[in-house]
């Protein structure tokens, strides 16, 4: 549940970028970090290996500005995608208000997308969250790669988006689809907040 401060009129939400290793989760955050003016973002924290692979998480707080009179902040997290970091993925997912699933569009990575999606469902279930009700957006990243290497968004949609959640083709390295993905995810989270009760 987003944290709401009625005294100072602030809302803080946690959005987690999930997906298989090297699908572009950190790249999404780096692009946001590079585009958002400094006064509207905090420091980006990356707990990474020497090879720049995410070890625990990346963290980037951004200030979305005033919405309905509330200063609205989003805390963006990524999880490590590699299969063997299952425990840390579960920890980062705790208390998430929404998820962006970053799928790798490369045909050879298709099975890893499916495996990661199943892992997400399992971890949400473990936290007592009904994945069908949970704010989620799919991003089909790396659509800038040569056509012969990737699956088209339609094909990925048929295979991965069985919930019919909002989905976007993306090229996070150059920023394509990053903004649209974040916009859809934040909208879903705030919509849920507006419909439910806050603490």
């Amino acid at each position, binding site marked *: 549940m987003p*944290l*709401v*401060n*009625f*005294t*100072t009129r*602030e*809302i*803080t939400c*946690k959005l987690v970028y999930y997906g298989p290793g090297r699908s572009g989760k950190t790249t999404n955050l780096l692009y946001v970090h590079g*585009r*958002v*003016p400094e006064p*509207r973002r*905090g*420091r980006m*924290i990356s*707990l990474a290996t020497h090879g720049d692979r995410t070890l*625990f*998480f990346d*963290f980037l*707080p*951004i200030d*979305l*500005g*005033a*919405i*309905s009179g*509330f200063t*609205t*902040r989003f*805390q963006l*997290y990524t999880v490590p995608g590699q299969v063997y970091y299952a*425990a*840390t993925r579960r*920890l*980062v997912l*705790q*208390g*998430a208000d929404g998820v962006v699933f970053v799928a790798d569009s490369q045909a050879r990575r298709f099975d890893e997308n499916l495996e990661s999606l199943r892992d997400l469902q399992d971890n949400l279930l473990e936290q007592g969250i009904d994945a069908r009700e949970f704010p989620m957006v799919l991003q089909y990243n790396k659509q800038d790669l040569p056509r012969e290497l990737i699956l088209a968004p339609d094909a990925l949609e048929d295979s991965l988006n069985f919930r019919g959640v909002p989905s976007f083709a993306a090229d996070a390295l150059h920023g394509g689809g990053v*903004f649209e993905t*974040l*916009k859809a995810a*934040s*909208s879903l989270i*705030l*919509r849920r*907040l*507006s419909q439910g*009760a*806050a*603490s």
Partner: protein
Amino acid sequence: MRAVEPWVETPLTEFLRESSAHLVLLMTSSGQVVAQHGFARSVDVMGCASLGAAISASTAEIAKIMGVGSLGQVVHQGGTRRVLLGSFPMRHGGNWLGLIVFGDDTSIGVVQVFFARLANALHRAAPVARESRQILAEQFEDELNASLRSLFGR
């Protein structure tokens, strides 16, 4: 001092007076800041909260894997300052965490005693049931879209 909930302020003020802690950060177990005292603008409060929550969560998992029961507190002995990170249960469910930075003007024992009192006082002060309140207007999306457009320079 800055606190999300007004009922946090009195126990926290008491803790600060008695423990002589320099910095205090209270957060949820998922890394959301609940209250803070002493953080200057140069110190990234949200970054500290996310890392504090990560340390606490990973320490608890290590304890579980090693079969050593729960590790409620972690203490870091720094050069001139020390850090205590501890978790405690809250009445409305879940745990909160406290990240306490203190110096030579107090001791780990004193900080631990008053941190335990702070945890109890917060547990008692927390409202049992959370109040339902309307937060966002029905049509908030126009404002959200405008904010995001300005944020991304579009």
